[in-house]
């Protein structure tokens, strides 16, 4: 990207000596998603381009919450496949809805035929998995003994591993598998687990991604922290007042780039860090965020000037947005276009890393940079090139940020497999 950039020194320092930690590009062989924007890549792209937000006033279950949510219509959520009913819960129904989009099932079957079921890993992120099942079961405890009903299947619904177990069983895969649950960075960090597993020779391809679903724990929990926006969330707006919780799923089939993949979108770099500051507030200067972004650039062998667009974590709380903006400004200066797409999807918590990686792929493929719906007046204290309107500038290489409670940070660099 042309223009002055005050932090070129970073790129100079590393560009001539290959870093041993540099990532081998992993192509996005297939993508699948479902969220309040719709099911599949086309519906998601149409909502982004048409600037249709998925947020609506909260009408979930019995929640009496004065906030907006990004909800998937119940009618869209079919029970899980008949041989997998032990996994049936809202979270896995959302996962299944996504898996059935855009030829993803076919792509996994093709990869399984090429590599073998034992050579495909499953690394997925979630923050609350199927905890809704347990919340609902607590309303049906035995009045005499306090026991939970026998139909509550803890291991295959509530437990965090349920999601990866479900997806691995859905595709009859036998490779390494784990769930990462680091709150809102979960499904960004799984790209790293896959990259390490492939580099270590544990598998040849991997399904990465994540799913989170609406539940009372997060609606009332974020409410108790006074972090819920009263209307639809307005990232980076001067009047922003919190997050809107959303639900959704995003999956990506990752494989090392082959010769024919030069133009295919790939994971080019990934950086992870910890804030070491506070459980539920970010470091005010974004120190951990900056470390994660720097590490991601280093592992991609890129400098800040190579990044055309940053999909920010941008939750819309009073403290998160300026901390992230400070980190972005320190590293990238004034010129790099950035925005948060959470005004569209809401904050899908453990799914947002994967969902926003998919939004980045859509932006690269369709040649535009998403702006920010619901944001009206930019916070004047924030000094980054924040897009409100979509920009018709095709981004080549982009970054996606995901940060979470506990001070966990992850940044991805995404772009064409061969520069």
């Amino acid at each position: 990207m042309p223009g002055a950039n005050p932090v070129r020194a970073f790129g100079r320092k590393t560009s001539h000596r290959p870093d041993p930690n540099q990532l081998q590009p992993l192509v996005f062989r297939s993508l699948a998603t479902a969220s309040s924007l719709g099911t599949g890549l086309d519906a998601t792209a149409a909502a982004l381009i048409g600037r249709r937000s998925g947020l609506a006033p909260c009408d979930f279950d019995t929640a009496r919450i004065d906030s907006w949510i990004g909800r998937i219509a119940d009618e869209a959520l079919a029970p899980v496949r008949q041989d997998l009913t032990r996994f049936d819960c809202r979270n896995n129904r959302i996962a299944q809805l996504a898996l059935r989009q855009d030829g993803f099932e076919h792509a996994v079957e093709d990869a399984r035929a090429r590599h073998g079921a034992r050579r495909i890993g499953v690394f997925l992120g979630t923050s609350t998995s199927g905890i809704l099942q347990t919340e609902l079961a607590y309303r049906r405890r035995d009045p005499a003994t306090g026991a939970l009903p026998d139909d509550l299947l803890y291991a295959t619904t509530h437990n965090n591993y349920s999601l990866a177990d479900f997806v691995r069983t859905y595709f009859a895969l036998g490779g390494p598998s784990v769930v990462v649950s680091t709150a809102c960075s979960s499904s960004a960090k799984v790209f790293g687990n896959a990259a390490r597993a492939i580099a270590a020779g544990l598998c040849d391809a991997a399904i990465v991604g994540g799913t989170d679903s609406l539940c009372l724990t997060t609606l009332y929990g974020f409410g108790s922290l006074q972090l819920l926006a009263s209307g639809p969330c307005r990232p980076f707006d001067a009047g922003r007042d919190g997050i809107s919780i959303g639900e959704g799923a995003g999956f990506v089939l990752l494989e090392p780039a082959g010769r024919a993949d030069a133009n295919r979108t790939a994971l080019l770099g990934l950086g992870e860090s910890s804030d070491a500051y506070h459980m539920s507030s970010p470091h005010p200067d974004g120190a951990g965020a900056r470390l994660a972004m720097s590490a991601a650039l280093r592992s991609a062998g890129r400098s800040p000037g190579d990044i055309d667009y940053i999909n920010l974590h941008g939750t819309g709380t009073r403290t998160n947005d300026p901390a992230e903006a400070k980190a972005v400004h320190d590293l990238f200066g004034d010129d790099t276009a950035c925005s948060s797409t959470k005004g569209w999807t809401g904050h899908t918590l453990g799914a947002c890393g994967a969902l926003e990686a998919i939004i980045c792929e859509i932006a690269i493929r369709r040649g535009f940079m998403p702006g920010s719906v619901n944001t009206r007046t930019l916070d004047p204290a924030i000094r980054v090139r924040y897009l409100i309107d979509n920009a018709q500038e095709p981004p080549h290489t982009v970054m996606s940020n995901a940060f979470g409670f506990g001070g966990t940070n992850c940044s991805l660099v995404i772009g064409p497999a061969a520069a």
Partner: protein
Amino acid sequence: MRVFVESVGLIGPGLPGWQIARPILAGIQPYAYSALNPPRVDILPAAERRRTGLPVKLAIAVGQDALAQTGRGADQLPTVFSASGGDGEVIHEICETLAGSERLVSPTRFHNSVHNAPAGYWSIATRSQAKSTSLCCRDWSFAAGLMEAAAEVATGSEAALLLCYDACYPEPLHRLRPVTEAFAAAMLLTRVRTADAASELSIESIAGQHVDSPMSDAELEALRKGNPAARALPLFAAISTGKPATVFLDYLGDGHLRIDLRAC
């Protein structure tokens, strides 16, 4: 994957740290059960210490136990946290509150309900900004954590600290998820052999059979089966003897890890 074990940490009933556990696991001293007292975590600031539950205390204490055997500091050390579940007391209290009419969830309980709460408190206590992940793989959480920590050092980091822990759930959750005793295990893995190295591991994932190395002592075997983090016991017993050994760990229900161990 080949990695070196620089040190280990262990906390369980009758096993309050590696120095005491080592001769017991080596069969030199008998195992005697005694209920586990919540470990002290003085490195956590007082305000945070008051807010934390047993899983956080287990994770921090077992990590400190592993680091106490070596000269290595925590501040630059990547960490892999792995647990089959979160803080059962917190989950129970939140679900009970949400089933009632008032639904006044405590904000502290809510932020302690995240699976990565121990990792968050560890980074605050050690002031470590190093990369960290928090895994869940149900009953295979130790095996999955070992795979991740080994992959971390095999593909980039010089060293990584694995911390596995699980505490018991209160009723009515206990009946659905019967973790019988609290337990925590930690391993400091390195890519190259260091002066402190205790053993070298060669880890291979094998399909098909369900194989799990048992503990010969009946009480320790019950402990191993009763807590996913205690699946570490056979490997730690092999490390404690300092003799070559092969240990099998059930992994994902359709395979196992074969770990060949050589003393350094």
